[in-house]
């Protein structure tokens, strides 16, 4: 996938911008607070409809303006596609609209048309940070890849919220209603579990090879394990549904007593191991960072292999966080990318890259 045109209107510090990115590596260079990350955020918004920096999307709209608009053309497998995502501030909150080729569509239809893999400094906490960070990485990738996954995830989330309200006693407790929510959670959750399991297995295989290519076997093999809250031996729909049902039954009393949903893929995790030991507990900072880099290269490769075309890679100020060797290793890992955007305050040493200087939301090709 190649973004060939990006057009911004009232997006953060960009009043108006027309940008024709190059294929391959695009380096966005400039001092702090000039709009490098804002540009990257806009591309991510165009692809996923979500910001990787904030959950409050009103922040994306230039202050004092009613609407932010991001539009772009992209070369995808099926041909040229025209996307647009607008965020409007209203009295009752922000409202987002999505369009594909000029036609308004629902988010579920929009998502996945232009796939992106983002790598931001916060991801360096992936190994030791909270599980939600790791689940969100998996969800973001899979939701872009499959509309069915997104639908299951959205439905699962809604039923989960309802079930916890029921457990907390917001309404009178009702066994049939609890059973209804559990039934829906099992149905949608099973789909999530199976998709995550297959995805993590693919990530594991790639990350292991990438990692070995970088550091050899000195520290042992890197492993990514899907730590499911509903573990099964054989990954079939029936087996997962049965295990899910059984766990819900055994945890039933605890769930009611504590008023919390204890069973299901919302409690899944992704575990990093190096040489058989938990990386979060035993790994050095350096080892953890290398593992995250390997994971990100693996995520990109997996989405590319399974989706049949390369997603767009967005790297927000990550390189500056890495030492020279790791920078080089990572850039080598993504050397063959169809298109990538990298923000940096310094220089990126890739001869084939198109470099742009950003000063006060103005873009200038620097060769």
């Amino acid at each position, binding site marked *: 996938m190649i973004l060939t045109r990006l057009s911004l209107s009232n997006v953060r510090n960009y009043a108006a911008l027309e940008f024709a990115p190059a294929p391959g590596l695009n380096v966005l260079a400039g001092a702090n607070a000039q709009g490098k990350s804002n540009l990257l955020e806009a591309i991510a918004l165009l692809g996923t409809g979500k910001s990787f920096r904030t959950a409050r999307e009103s922040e994306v709209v230039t202050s004092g303006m009613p609407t932010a608009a991001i539009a772009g053309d992209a070369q995808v497998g099926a041909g040229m596609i025209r996307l647009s995502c607008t965020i409007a501030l209203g009295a009752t909150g922000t409202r987002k609209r999505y369009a594909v080729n000029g036609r308004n569509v629902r988010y*579920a239809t929009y998502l996945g048309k232009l796939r992106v893999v983002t790598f931001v400094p916060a991801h360096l906490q992936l190994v030791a940070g909270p599980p939600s960070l790791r689940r969100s990485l998996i969800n973001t990738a899979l939701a872009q890849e499959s*509309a069915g996954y997104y639908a299951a995830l959205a439905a699962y989330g809604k*039923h989960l919220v*309802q079930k916890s309200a*029921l457990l907390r006693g*917001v309404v*009178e407790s009702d066994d049939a209603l609890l059973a209804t929510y559990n039934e829906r959670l099992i149905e949608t959750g099973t789909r999530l579990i199976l998709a995550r399991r297959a995805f993590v297995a693919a990530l594991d295989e790639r990350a292991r090879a990438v990692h070995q290519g970088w550091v050899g076997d000195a520290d042992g093999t890197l492993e990514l394990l899907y730590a499911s809250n509903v573990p099964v031996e054989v990954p079939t729909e029936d087996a997962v549904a049965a295990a899910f049902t059984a766990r819900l039954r055994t945890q039933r009393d605890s769930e009611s007593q504590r008023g919390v949903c204890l069973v299901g893929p919302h409690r899944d995790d992704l575990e990093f191991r190096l040489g058989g030991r938990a990386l979060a507990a035993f790994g050095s900072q350096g080892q953890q960072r290398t593992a995250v880099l390997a994971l990100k290269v693996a995520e990109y490769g997996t989405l590319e292999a399974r989706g049949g075309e390369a997603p767009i890679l967005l790297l927000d100020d990550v390189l500056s966080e890495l030492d020279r060797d790791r920078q080089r290793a990572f850039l080598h890992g993504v050397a063959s990318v169809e298109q990538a955007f990298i923000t940096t305050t310094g220089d990126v040493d890739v001869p084939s890259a198109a470099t742009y200087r950003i000063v006060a939301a103005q873009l200038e090709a620097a060769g």
Partner: protein
Amino acid sequence: MPTVGPKTAARLVFYLLNRPRAEAEALAEAILAVKDRVRLCSRCFSLTEEDPCALCTDVRRDATLMCVVAEAKDIFALERTSAYHGRYHVLGGLISPMDGIGPAQLRVKELIERIASERPSEVIVATNPNAEGEATALYLSRLIAPSGVSVTRLAYGLPIGGDLDYADEITLAKALEGRRTLQ
């Protein structure tokens, strides 16, 4: 008022200013009549002036079918199809514990009592195809199942005159799941 923004409101005011007084009075009376005369049918909880409502008392309607809807306005949508001639039951909303709406806040008990006394052969749950509508339908089918009455749900699918190309993947997948043999 829903769907009436400041611009529409201003337009309505200027329109009314230009109309004769009698017309304004008629409108005011009609609005009052809505408040005074329209109430809930004690049987199906639809809106009516007579209790029980015309839909419940019409002997030409099929008493073996009962269609469960969330709101009274859904009845109007279904009646416009002229394809359904059974009875209705209005729940008064959809189950949503996070909003404080459980079965006790809706007319679920009344539905179960009606099914026991009226003995329809089929209950059609016509709730919206969203998470709350789905959960409400499944919950009702759980409650009704022991009575032996068959419970059905509206089909999911493609809009008539639509284009496969433009259908969203989830609707299309549901339509595939619910495919039927051509006779």
